[in-house]
């Protein structure tokens, strides 16, 4: 516990947490695993334990603290004004100082494939990547887990090991499952959303008939900047009539993701338009976080456009 003494200044803040759980429905990590320990409340309880001696610092505990997409939704949703992110950050610092080198959701570079182009170092808006002793290193305390460096790397040498449903392969899998033969007969589109706070549907429960009649599936990505062209193409290929990306307003996005996804999709749609694909099939719309009503409005408008356009591929081609 000695190493965690410095957390003492947060004792008051930790006492303020009434453990209501209002934070956890917003957390992408919790939503992915649904274990209490992965929720913001659970992590605060862990910190409480580190302070009281109820929990020993360990790789496992450090890993839990390092798993966070820094979306800040928990702090905004907190009923009691707990400065959750600041408390976490201090705890991470102590754990890293104590020698726990666990990546969590931070990015890692595979030195075997890295071409040392330094694209990632230049583009990281958080200054988390640097070139040291001939290789790229990630500063565990600066990395915001946005994944921007994953797309910029020409060698696909950057990974976030635990994506909690937001890694490209995980998104591709979800899309494929939604359009898999006959499973959702009404399936027409995929909607990517930057965070859970806009999510209009049921949060954790499932109701089979709803899935059967669903025309679109919302997939939460954490940062829209992570939506790759390949993901869009594979959605269209799987049978989607269209894809909507709901991103945060440019001025709200601290990762520079919004402008990036817009530019990327524009570049993608140009050649597609050339072969007769209506550009309206792939749209990016901005919605500020925490506005499910607006989210629904833009989604409904998009679905109207898509229905008017009809299927892109014949069912047999999909």
């Amino acid at each position, binding site marked *: 516990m000695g190493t965690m003494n410095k957390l003492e200044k947060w004792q*008051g803040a930790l*006492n303020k947490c009434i453990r209501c759980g209002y934070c956890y429905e917003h957390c992408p990590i919790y939503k992915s695993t*649904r274990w*209490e320990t992965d929720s913001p409340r659970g992590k605060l309880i862990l910190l409480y*334990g580190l302070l*009281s001696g109820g929990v020993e610092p360990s790789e496992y505990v450090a890993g839990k603290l390092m798993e966070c997409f820094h979306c800040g939704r928990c702090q905004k949703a907190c009923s009691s004004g707990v400065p959750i992110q600041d408390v976490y950050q201090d705890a991470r610092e102590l754990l890293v100082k104590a020698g726990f080198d666990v990546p969590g959701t931070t990015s890692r570079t595979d030195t075997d494939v890295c071409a040392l182009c330094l694209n990632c170092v230049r583009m990281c808006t958080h200054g988390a990547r640097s070139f040291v002793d001939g290789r790229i290193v990630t500063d565990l305390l600066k990395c915001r887990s946005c994944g921007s460096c994953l797309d910029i790397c020409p060698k696909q040498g950057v990974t976030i090991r635990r994506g909690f449903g937001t890694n490209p392969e995980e998104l591709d899998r979800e899309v494929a499952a939604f359009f898999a033969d006959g499973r959702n007969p009404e399936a027409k589109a995929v909607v990517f959303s930057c965070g859970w706070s806009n999510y209009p*549907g*049921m949060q954790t429960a499932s*109701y089979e008939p709803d899935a059967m009649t669903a025309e679109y599936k919302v997939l939460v990505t954490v940062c829209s900047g992570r939506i790759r062209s390949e993901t869009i193409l594979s959605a269209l290929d799987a049978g989607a009539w269209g894809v909507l990306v709901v991103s945060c307003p440019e001025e709200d996005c601290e990762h520079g993701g919004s402008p990036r996804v817009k530019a990327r999709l524009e570049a993608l749609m140009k050649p597609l338009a050339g072969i007769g694909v209506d550009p309206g099939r792939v749209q990016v719309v901005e919605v500020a976080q925490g506005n499910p009503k607006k989210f629904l409005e833009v989604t409904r408008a998009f679905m109207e456009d898509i229905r008017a356009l009809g299927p892109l591929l014949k069912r047999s081609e999909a």
Partner: protein
Amino acid sequence: MSDINFEKLRAIVGEANLLRDPADLYVYGSDSSVHEGMPQAVVRPMTVEQVQELLRYADGERIPVIPRGSGSGMCGQVVPVQGGIVLDMKGMNRILEINLQDGYCRVEPGVVDDDLNKALKPHGVFYPPTPASSMVATIGGELANNASGTRSVKYGAARDAILAMKVVLAGGELVSFGATTRVAASGYPLERLMVGSEGTLGVIVEAALRFVPIPRLRCLGIAMFNQLGEAGDAISDIMGSGCQPSMLELVDKIAITAANKAEKLGLPEVEAILLFEADGMAKETIDPEIEKFRAICERHNGFGFEFSYDEKERARIFAARSKLFPSLSKYDERLASTSLADDMAVPFSKMAETANKIHEIAERHGLVMTAYGHCGAGCMHTKILMDTEKGEHWEAAQRAVAEIYEYVRSVGGTTSAEHGIGLSKAAAFKREKASVLGLMRGIKKVFDPNNIMNPGKLMDGPEDWVGETHLRYQKS
């Protein structure tokens, strides 16, 4: 109790649904109460058969089993005071059926209340108990605690919504209670017995619940009072007048001050506010209710009336209540809002007196306590705001809690209106139910002969909740 056989647990639920790291166990030792404990394992069953197998194993080895929803209970219901296995029921989260013709829905226990209502909404119906914690609370937890909410004054609590349920008993046997019909006359209503049992009788694995039509219109009103007693008299007159509010809430001055301070609401700092809602399909039936409310409040010197049917306006008026909870935590930097003496029910005619009594007791013990609640249902809530690091504050809190419940009993009230008993209200509960504790223990013995289901709670909870349990706060 034997050591846990993790191989066995793994064989039943699979590696992916088993936690045993001490850090996970520590996290699963708490809920929204002041207590903490430590289980030996956490498992997440995904099917009824897995629950049965787990219970068969645990019963054979005499290992405590604590069913858990979201852990938003406020009295320590899911705190594993004797170790054992926590069953995280959130893996069983399917809505199985929405049957509009026969007027019921069937759900697994891990479905979150708000999710159920999202699924019901397109059909024009809602599941009404809806506690303030509906965004986290599971149906299993709501049933086991008999949760209710602001609209329970008209639509009832969880116990009024239950029609039938499937339960796995301690030995692993699966039984069905109740019927999905609207009436069921004979025999013991065991489905209702399960409601409020706090996980001590068995594991609810499926529930059939009734729902009601969503009213087309809602009108919310507000009235202010310079005397808490006058607001209290208005409450009993409203409830005695045949009025049918869909909500009747009391907010006291401490809560108003807190809301103003934390959320800058700019509310007049009067002694009490009453919020009144009437709902229905036509204005013609709602307006007279609102008129009656206004007339009664005027008779008791109420003033500052506002009424609105508009959704946005209603949200603005309701802010005094909806912002209350967060405000209490932000009331004073040095004070934490603890879930103590958190709820009780008293006769309508004693509402104001109870609120005054709470203030008097708090002041005498150097604590800050507010009084608010679903007064149309006789439900009163409070919170103790205190410096949790000071041992003397805990002593004061313990005395205050005891005095409050002694008063509640003296006026014919009851220890819990909706939050349940768990650990922190057990002493008061046992005093209130002294004459039937033997019967309750007898019933438990029939359901759970080896006392593995959530032991040490409710009628077996501690007398001294400060000394006999582990508090989650570090006190000097």
